[in-house]
């Protein structure tokens, strides 16, 4: 929207400084050759000993100059690329602040609305209870949002207090579902436990829960099926163990499959209101997977065809 003046546009600066450098390299060499040929004519005129004047090093000089200028150009280029990356991050962060304030404002609006209602009207006990529940849920939402930011800082600085504990993954996922069943009430969630198989992994329970929570809520949030469904299955593939989260949601466009794990990235645009959420969920998931020495890969046949998230973990000894 506010396009910078072309004079201070980074690409223009990059191109003109590279041109200036190349030109100066050319001039260095040109003047060097001119001066040395002038010297040579003096040497010839006065019949001096040529060995004294190091003229044989012309090519060495040109080579050194070219290499130096090359290094400078590379440096400029690297700075330029970094600059672009910072700009992109800045833009994404701006996006994030916009959307996250929206996320924060919604529960605050609801809280304020009910508190003012309570001040204004005498409500029946029954109604009071109902709306107090709403307010409690809103404070829960607020503290979740705040926790997400705090967790982000913690995970990024790799400074997590909790220790790894050995757990059977299918059991841990079932336990998570059991503990949070109230959040997934109208959904069809199936965990296909492998028969006679256990997959013991060293996990940080709170982190792993955060990963599950993000994958679950994404599958249900970006979903317009009558009954949102998630299917979780376990697969063994060539020295890898894959936990597959398959949903029947709105799917992901092919071009977005990798981008969704970037920090602050959101599908959709903030200017046409199609972007929602903080753009942090999958970034956290990706980081948590890495902390557990695994990775997360998204798969989708396109929009409207559901999505699959594969948590790929290194192979571990299994006992039945």
């Amino acid at each position, binding site marked *: 929207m506010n396009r910078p003046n072309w004079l201070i546009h980074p690409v223009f600066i990059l191109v003109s400084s590279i041109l200036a450098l190349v030109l100066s390299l050319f001039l260095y060499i040109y003047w060097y050759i001119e001066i040395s040929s002038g010297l040579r004519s003096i040497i010839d005129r006065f019949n001096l000993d040529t060995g004294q004047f190091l003229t044989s090093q012309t090519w060495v000089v040109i080579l050194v100059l070219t290499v130096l200028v090359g290094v400078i150009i590379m440096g400029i280029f690297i700075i330029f690329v970094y600059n672009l990356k910072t700009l992109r991050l800045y833009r994404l962060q701006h996006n994030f602040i916009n959307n996250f304030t929206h996320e924060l404002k919604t529960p605050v609006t609801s809280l304020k609305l009910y508190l003012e209602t309570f001040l204004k009207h005498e409500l029946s006990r029954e109604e009071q209870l109902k709306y107090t529940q709403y307010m409690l849920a809103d404070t829960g939402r607020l503290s979740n949002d705040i926790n997400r930011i705090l967790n982000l800082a913690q995970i990024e600085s790799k400074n997590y207090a909790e220790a790894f504990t050995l757990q059977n993954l299918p059991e841990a996922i079932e336990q998570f579902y059991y503990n949070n069943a109230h959040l997934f009430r109208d959904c069809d969630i199936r965990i296909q436990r492998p028969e006679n198989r256990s997959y013991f992994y060293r996990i940080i329970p709170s982190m792993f829960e955060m990963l599950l929570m993000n994958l679950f809520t994404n599958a249900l949030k970006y979903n317009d099926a009558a009954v949102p469904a998630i299917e979780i299955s376990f697969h063994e593939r060539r020295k890898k163990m894959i936990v597959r989260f398959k949903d029947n949601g709105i799917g992901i466009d092919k071009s977005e499959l990798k981008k969704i794990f970037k920090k602050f990235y959101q599908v959709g645009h903030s200017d046409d209101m*199609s972007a929602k959420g903080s753009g942090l969920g999958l970034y956290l998931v990706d980081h948590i997977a890495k902390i557990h020495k695994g990775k997360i890969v998204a798969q989708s046949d396109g929009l409207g065809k559901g999505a699959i998230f594969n948590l790929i973990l290194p192979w571990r000894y299994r006992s039945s």
Partner: protein
Amino acid sequence: MKSNLKPRILVIEDDLHIAEGLKLNLSLQGYEVRIAQNGPAGIQMWREWRPDLIVLDIMLPGIDGLSILRNIRLEDEKIPILILSAKATTEFKVKGLSYGVDDYLTKPFSLEEFLLRVDRLVKRASWSNSDSELAKEMSDSELDRFTFGSNQVDFKTMTADCKSGQVRLTEQEAKLLKLFLLNPGQPLSREKLLQIGWGYTKGTTTRTVDNFIVRFRKYFEDNPKKPSYFVSIRSIGYVFYADPEKHTE
């Protein structure tokens, strides 16, 4: 005609807590309130229920609030609409106002202020309804007739005078045509056209839009094969030019 009934308010808001809180308060004020939690449902409810006021959120699943606003304004210039949004920048307020919203409140809002503004909007709408016959004659007149090139469109009689004589427009044709005529020179994507013109997000393929454009070109273009009014823009959608001469490359 509705004066002895409770005024109806439609709340289009995706957050259930806020929607219910609004409903509670507005009902206590003596309004009849319904909630729509997404864009398409909101448009449908507006059409079927004919509310007296709409409270509209901007960030909505399905169709965003501003597209809903434009969709409604294509058919109904009068119904008071109040936007209630967390978007607090001037940019959004200006956008909303330019698309014809009557009032804009940012979240979090004060309940008292909200209720007073709603009261005011409903009251004012009921006044203009009471001398409606005259108002009907007066208002919209500038929006009813359009001329571009040798074509003339009359939205009141739903007819168009064009090179092939007089054409009777269907309701959907008239709506889409109005959207183009009101936004000359502005590129409109197929998705936006579907959202604003039809109130759909999916189910209807974007081919539908193309079919209408083909019809418009047949009606209005001197040479439908080389359109100068309804021009397609590759990979974006369409743009309407009122004076094609200025835009020929």
